[in-house]
């Protein structure tokens, strides 16, 4: 990054700045001309006597001459403002581009920081710098060259014009400028200093407040309240003093400016008037001088402000450069291949100290294709050693050897061929497929960007940011020898099956809604599956688990709206509450004679909810979780309920009744169990209304008895022609598993899995269990086909599930070196080498292979530690 703001601006926006300066130069003659025209109007057109006058090439009488001059003035004003507009836009544009560049540069630098430094950087600080601190740079830097040129030039034009009219008056106009130029920045500097101490004071006050609140218990118990109050009072006094002085000074500056600006016209009227009366100056010139002087104030003020902001903003810029500037941030490391090489650590010490879980003087060798157990407690050095092997913790002392190379950063350089899974892996907020493909992202996307990407791309190039479209497919398929997306899908499915996530993916695929217009083949496949399931329904044991769309029965797992209209809108957004707002729905409900009953159901629901919450005696957002109403809506219902009780739902306002109907629409008997839908007569009336409503024309709506795909329903309900019963969701095997088995038998399951891979996992994988997160991270690791796979506390249990995982890893990655970090001694027989770590040192190295002598033997430096828990406990065979 450039060291100073000026340099940064000049290097990255030279053409733009030159353009702005040129435009400023163009505007000066326009300004000058617009000053002269009024003078000519007064002297020649109003008070002139010799007509006709020559204007350009025309000869004009007095009135025409006046009009022509006024027209010229208008034109000049328009031109001048057009140039101003252009300059402002150009300044803004340049500034925004520079801001984007600063932000991107800082972000890019943060992503390149050494991990050790990144760990010490608080995310809040980066956010603060990127979001707030650099923001004013954008507004200012576009004008950093233009402002002095434009405003200074304007000032010169005005002053020059006045001097040309009368040198004495001209001098009078500017005689006080030096005073202002000297005094005001001086005061301003004091204000800036005060502002700094105000910020400091506020920060101190914030921490004082939070400390007091956190320690409130101790404060009360110790009876120290009075002292805390005095401290706070003292801080507030300081705060008050600073703020008081700031505004006193601010108004002092304002006062000085105002007085000086208004004193000058005193000279003009007095001395100028005298000159006019004496006949030594014409009136037109005086009028023009007064007009010009009025305009001087603005550029002069701008120049003063510019001077003030320049120091502020270039300080900000330099602060950013200091933290994220060039020299201290390393270049990206040169990649290194680990495949087929033995990785040797020789007396390696981590840059995390031993008493913080780091390792010291560790020597070990990982032979290609071997399985190694690093046994020990997580915080006894194992976790850090695993991370060090992954290249995520730096080597502070000792050396790493791979092939012919020696160095401390070899593992960092090999990161493309290393995969690491910890117990709490990082899961992206994105789809399952994106998560699996995460470690295979290339440096540029496949395929061409969409046509509307061109503007984005041009802008990116101007500001030094990457122009690639992040929405394209970034997976580097050739890296793992795969042709393209479809082949990759197959590979992912294979891996997901191996890590035991396929069923979850399948279940997710079943519960998604599919855009049938974009994916007609999925709809077709779902209809094929529907036919199969219809045949085998009984054999699959589904009869009791699914509520089928029975045209003349009340659907317990469906909402009232679904029961009435026997179908769903194609877009989920148009669902129940949205439906209630449609005019044709309202008309149809009234015609079917069910509207009042629905309002009544809504009213009873609202009352029950109110009772339930009211009994708790306070506001609670718990109700939101029910998905029926939001806490905020309850207030509306609290208003409606008494009115409805007094006057009956029939006489409610239309909007209120609609609200009740919308609430009723959402009720699902098995889910909400409020009892309002329990009466058989009520259900019978709703079913009767269903028949009467059958003819209602609704926009983008599909009925349950449609033969085709129903876009508003998830895949599973399309296949089942019904809805899984809410109360049978925990049946074993679950309905999804039964479907998978049946569909797999007919080879109809792939489309569901493909859809499942494209479902979102929520914010950082919030919809996944911890074990599923680990399995997903493991799938990511395996898919990348690394040379070295590091598993810390993952797939290391003795149970059948984890044995299967280990077998799968061996099958899918036959040539990889696999390192398990674990406390589980039962893994020892499966391993080629075992390295025991205790208290940050190697306690024992054991290999089943005699050739392992190439690796360093038991570490002579590792003295037996005095702590009793250091040594691994021998497990008795009877345990």
């Amino acid at each position: 990054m450039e060291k100073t703001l000026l340099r940064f601006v000049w290097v990255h926006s030279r053409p733009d700045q030159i353009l702005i300066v040129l435009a400023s130069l163009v505007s000066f003659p326009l300004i000058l001309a617009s000053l002269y025209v009024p003078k000519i109007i007064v002297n020649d057109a109003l008070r002139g006597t010799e007509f006709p006058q020559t204007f350009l090439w025309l000869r004009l009488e007095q009135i025409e001459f006046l009009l022509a001059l006024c027209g010229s003035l208008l034109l000049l004003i328009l031109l001048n403002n057009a140039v101003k507009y252009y300059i402002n836009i150009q300044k803004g544009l340049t500034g925004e581009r520079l801001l984007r560049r600063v932000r991107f540069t800082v972000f890019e630098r943060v992503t390149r920081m050494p991990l050790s430094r990144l760990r010490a950087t608080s995310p809040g600080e980066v956010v603060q710098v990127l979001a707030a601190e650099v923001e004013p740079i954008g507004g200012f830097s576009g004008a950093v060259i233009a402002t002095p040129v434009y405003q200074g030039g304007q000032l010169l034009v005005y002053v020059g014009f006045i001097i040309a009219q009368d040198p004495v008056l001209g001098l009078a106009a500017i005689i006080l400028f030096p005073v202002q130029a000297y005094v005001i920045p001086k005061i301003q500097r004091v204000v800036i200093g005060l502002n700094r101490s105000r910020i400091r004071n506020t920060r101190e006050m914030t921490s004082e407040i939070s400390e007091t609140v956190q320690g409130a218990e101790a404060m009360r118990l110790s009876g120290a309240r009075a002292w805390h109050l005095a401290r706070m009072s003292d801080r507030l006094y300081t705060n008050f003093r600073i703020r008081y002085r700031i505004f006193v000074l601010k108004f002092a500056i304002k006062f000085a400016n105002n007085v000086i600006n208004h004193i000058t016209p005193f000279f003009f009227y007095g001395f100028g008037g005298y000159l006019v009366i004496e006949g030594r100056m014409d009136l037109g010139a005086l009028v023009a001088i007064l007009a010009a002087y009025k305009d001087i104030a603005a550029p002069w003020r701008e120049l003063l402000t510019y001077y003030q902001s320049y120091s502020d903003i270039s300080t900000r810029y330099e602060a950013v450069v200091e933290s994220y500037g060039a020299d201290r941030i390393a270049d990206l490391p040169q990649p290194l291949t680990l495949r087929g090489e033995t990785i040797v650590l020789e007396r390696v010490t981590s840059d995390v100290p031993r008493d913080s879980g780091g390792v010291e003087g560790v020597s070990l060798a990982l032979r290609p294709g071997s399985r190694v157990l690093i046994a020990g407690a997580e915080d006894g050095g194992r976790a850090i050693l695993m991370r060090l092997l992954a290249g995520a913790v730096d080597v502070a002392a000792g050396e790493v050897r791979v092939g012919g190379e020696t160095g401390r950063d070899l593992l960092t350089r090999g990161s493309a061929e290393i995969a690491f899974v910890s117990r709490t892996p990082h899961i992206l907020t994105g789809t399952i497929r994106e998560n699996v493909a995460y470690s295979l992202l290339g440096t540029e996307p496949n395929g061409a960007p969409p046509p509307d990407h061109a503007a984005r791309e041009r802008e990116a190039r101007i500001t030094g940011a990457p122009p690639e479209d992040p929405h394209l497919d970034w997976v580097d398929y050739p890296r793992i020898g795969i042709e393209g997306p479809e082949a990759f899908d197959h590979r992912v499915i294979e891996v997901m099956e191996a890590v035991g996530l396929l069923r979850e993916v399948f279940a997710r695929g079943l519960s998604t809604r599919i855009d049938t217009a974009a994916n007609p083949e999925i709809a077709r496949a779902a209809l094929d599956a529907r036919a199969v399931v219809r045949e085998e329904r009984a054999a699959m044991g589904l009869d009791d688990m699914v509520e089928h769309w029975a045209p003349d029965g009340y659907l317990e797992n469906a909402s009232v709206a679904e029961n009435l209209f026997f179908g769903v809108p194609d877009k989920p957004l148009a669902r129940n509450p949205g439906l209630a707002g449609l005019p044709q729905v309202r008309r149809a409900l009234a015609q079917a004679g069910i509207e009042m009953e629905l309002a009544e159901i809504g009213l009873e629901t609202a009352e029950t909810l109110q009772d339930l919450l009211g009994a708790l005696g306070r506001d609670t957002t718990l109700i939101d979780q029910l998905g029926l109403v939001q806490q905020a809506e309850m207030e509306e219902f609290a208003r409606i309920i008494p009115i409805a009780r007094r006057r009956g739902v029939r006489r409610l306002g239309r909007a209120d009744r609609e609200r009740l109907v919308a609430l009723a629409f959402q009720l699902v008997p098995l889910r909400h169990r409020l009892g309002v839908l329990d009466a058989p007569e009520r259900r019978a009336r709703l079913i009767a209304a269903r028949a009467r409503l059958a003819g209602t024309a609704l926009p983008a709506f599909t009925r349950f008895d449609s033969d085709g795909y129903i876009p508003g329903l998830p895949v599973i309900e399309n296949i089942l022609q019904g809805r899984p019963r809410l109360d049978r969701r925990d049946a074993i095997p679950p309905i999804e598993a039964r479907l998978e088995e049946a569909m797999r038998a007919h080879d109809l399951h792939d489309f569901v899995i493909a859809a499942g891979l494209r479902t979102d996992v929520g914010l950082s994988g919030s919809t996944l269990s911890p074990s599923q997160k680990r399995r997903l991270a493991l799938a990511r690791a395996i898919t990348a086909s690394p040379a070295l796979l590091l598993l810390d506390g993952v797939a290391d249990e003795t149970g059948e599930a984890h044995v299967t995982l280990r077998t799968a890893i061996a099958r899918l990655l036959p040539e990889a070196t696999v390192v398990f970090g674990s406390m589980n001694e039962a893994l020892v027989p499966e391993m080629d080498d075992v390295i025991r770590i205790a208290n940050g040192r190697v306690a024992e190295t054991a290999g089943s292979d005699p050739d392992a002598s190439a690796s360093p033997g038991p570490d002579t430096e590792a003295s037996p530690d005095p702590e009793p828990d250091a040594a691994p406990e021998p497990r008795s065979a009877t345990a």
Partner: protein
Amino acid sequence: MTLSRESEILGRSPLFRGVDPAQLRLLALMAENRTFHRGEALMVQGEDGNAALVILSGEAEVLLRVDGIETQVARIGPTEIVGEMALLSDARRSATVRALETVQVLRLDRATLLRLLREFPGMSLELLRVMAGRLERTTQELARARADLAARTAAG
């Protein structure tokens, strides 16, 4: 089954005995119904659990599998709660529960319960009291079992 009936049964279960009736109704509303038929498992030993089940009707057996052999260790019925450890920790299911007839349960998942506990600290204390009581009992049983084992080893 109506909400009031459900909350009444909840209120008779040991875990929620001291909880205010209004809060119980809310708890019941937040919970979900589940039905299991004879022979179906309510939960399986060793699997991840994230919900507790309160039995509303029907009878189930608790089975413990040791070395591949399942043994019935208890029979449970209405108002009894199973899988409550899952409410507070990530623990796996410690036993299998199988329905002996059609069993209806209320399913309380961890997220919901935690929210309720946050909103009603009184409920947390009640839960803590019950859990502490159980721990106490378990500790005593463990001590007895150890003494037993020691006596038998000495004798054998």
